[in-house]
């Protein structure tokens, strides 16, 4: 177990280092002179040249990467071209709204998805199964930003029940959370259903039933625990989808998070900020998947590591 954790941790770190290389190279692929972009069109050639030296752009590429990477280890993500504030500061200001939205959405998606999946699998071919699976396919097909706007139209513009956007009160979380959770909810419901159906057909489930364990006891105690393993994997992957969807949801609801900052930075070509945010998102994704992998060991004692 200890060896497994170390191994898995090393892999996550290695992936993140890989991600820094990819982002570093991608940003350098952009046509045009970064110093010119940061300095602005009005800057003189002399200023641009000085900035180029300041930014380390005169060094060869691998040296530039090492400088970038060392800075990263010291928490230095560079300076925003737009605000001249440290990128780390810009991100820190917006981390909380994004994390809260992502966590509330994955929680709602997991609870609702699991519930729908369990109902569907245990009442197979019933009306409930049909309704749940129809909702699931609608959930995975609906554009998150459109769902957000339609919810806003109904609950904010016409009914005046909930705020149309902004961040702060608990009520402001409701619409963005539903919009963002819909897709993952559908995926989780579908995988829960198929995984549980598969487990319910196993011999040990039949044995338990034959021994007189009541139906719900079999589902909850025997089948669900095993059925949860693929569900866990999917929840981890969905967290990534959700972070991507957060960019769209935040834009829809004027949510002051990293996603909206990312979009604004792309529109204003603020590459240090883009770089920093994408790295932060990738790091969050890596940490969640690391936790999920560790959770396997807890859920499934059959898995041996090392």
């Amino acid at each position, binding site marked *: 177990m200890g060896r497994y954790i170390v191994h898995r941790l090393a892999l996550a770190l290695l992936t993140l280092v890989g991600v820094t290389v990819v982002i570093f190279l991608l940003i350098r692929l952009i046509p045009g002179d970064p110093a010119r972009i940061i300095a602005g069109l009005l800057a003189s050639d002399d200023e641009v040249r000085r900035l180029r030296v300041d930014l380390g752009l005169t060094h060869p590429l691998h040296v530039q990467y090492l400088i970038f990477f060392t800075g990263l280890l010291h928490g230095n993500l560079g300076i925003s071209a737009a605000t001249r504030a440290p990128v780390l500061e810009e991100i820190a200001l917006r981390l909380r709204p994004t994390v809260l939205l992502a966590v509330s959405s994955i929680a709602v998606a997991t609870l609702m998805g699991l519930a729908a999946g369990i109902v569907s699998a245990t009442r197979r071919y019933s009306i409930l199964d049909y309704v749940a699976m129809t909702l699931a396919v609608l959930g995975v097909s609906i554009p998150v930003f459109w769902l957000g706007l339609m919810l806003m139209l109904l609950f904010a513009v016409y009914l005046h029940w909930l705020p149309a956007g902004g961040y702060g009160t608990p009520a402001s979380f409701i619409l963005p959370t539903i919009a963002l959770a819909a897709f993952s909810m559908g995926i989780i419901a579908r995988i829960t259903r198929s995984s549980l159906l598969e487990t319910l057909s196993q011999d040990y489930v039949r044995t338990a039933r034959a021994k007189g364990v009541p139906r719900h006891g079999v589902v909850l105690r025997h089948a669900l625990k095993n059925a949860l393993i693929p569900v866990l994997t999917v929840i981890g992957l969905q967290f990534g989808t959700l972070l991507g969807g957060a*960019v769209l949801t935040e834009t829809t609801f004027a949510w002051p998070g990293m996603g909206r900052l990312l979009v604004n930075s792309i529109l204003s070509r603020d590459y240090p900020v883009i770089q920093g945010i994408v790295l932060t998102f990738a790091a969050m994704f890596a940490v969640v998947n690391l936790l999920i992998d560790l959770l396997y060991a807890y859920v499934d004692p059959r898995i041996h590591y090392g």
Partner: protein
Amino acid sequence: MWTPGSTTVSGAPPLSSRDRFGAWRQLRKHRTALAGLIVLGGFLVLTTLAPAILPYDPNAADLDRVLLPPSLAHPFGTDHLGRDLLTRVVFGTRVSFLIGILAVAFSASIGVPMGLVSGVRGGVVDLVVQRFVDLLLAFPGFLLALTLIAVLGVGVTNVVVSVGLAAMPQYVRLARGVALSVKEQAYIEAARAAGVGEGRILVRHVLPNCLAPLIVQSTLRLGEAILVAAGLGFLGLGVKPPTPEWGTMLGEGQSYLFSSWYIATFPGLAIFLAVIAANLLGDGLRDALDPRLKQA
């Protein structure tokens, strides 16, 4: 997964229930897939006939008729530049489907050969390809396409490349999986013994095994590609205006949501419909063609 019948269950349920539901299940499975196919076909027919049946130019502004609510003359209303929204949604079908289809074709045409070679060759090649795929997958969902568009800039080609690259890992994994499962088969060995070259084995003997899952995957990816491309458009990072593209139209409509609900509503409905149709068709095809892929 959508159709309740879509999971293979090894332990048989009581026969009677299987009989009772078997035919019905089969029927409904095909009905939903068929519905998906019909909707997709409808979109294509509509967009082909568009210039003949729609009286308006999708891009011509008419400042006397801005922000008109839906009426007989303009069933979906008009936008802030007085353009007929029905016309723009119908013409948008071309752009959105074109981007979706090209993106899927792009990612399949790079991902499949990579996966095949990786699976058949193994060793260092496999290791390098797998780490590359892991790296792409380390970027959460939509963010890879977004980052690529940030680097490449907007426009149809760049959207296709970004969306396509973001979807590529699935194809690499699929093709590699198939290659791994067939490469030890006797007929591959026989071909090799008969002196058939590596490339020919790949194309003639391994690739055909991928076709069924590939068709399923591509149908499902089409829906996703349309969604991702529309998301980019919504953020103002898709195709350049005034090209009618569903996501971009939706983004424009967002500013007028409180006064003119119809601008954002109809393009979104079109995206929703197209994606449901692709997903239903994909699910149906998966059940019919590729029982092995039945997990979500």
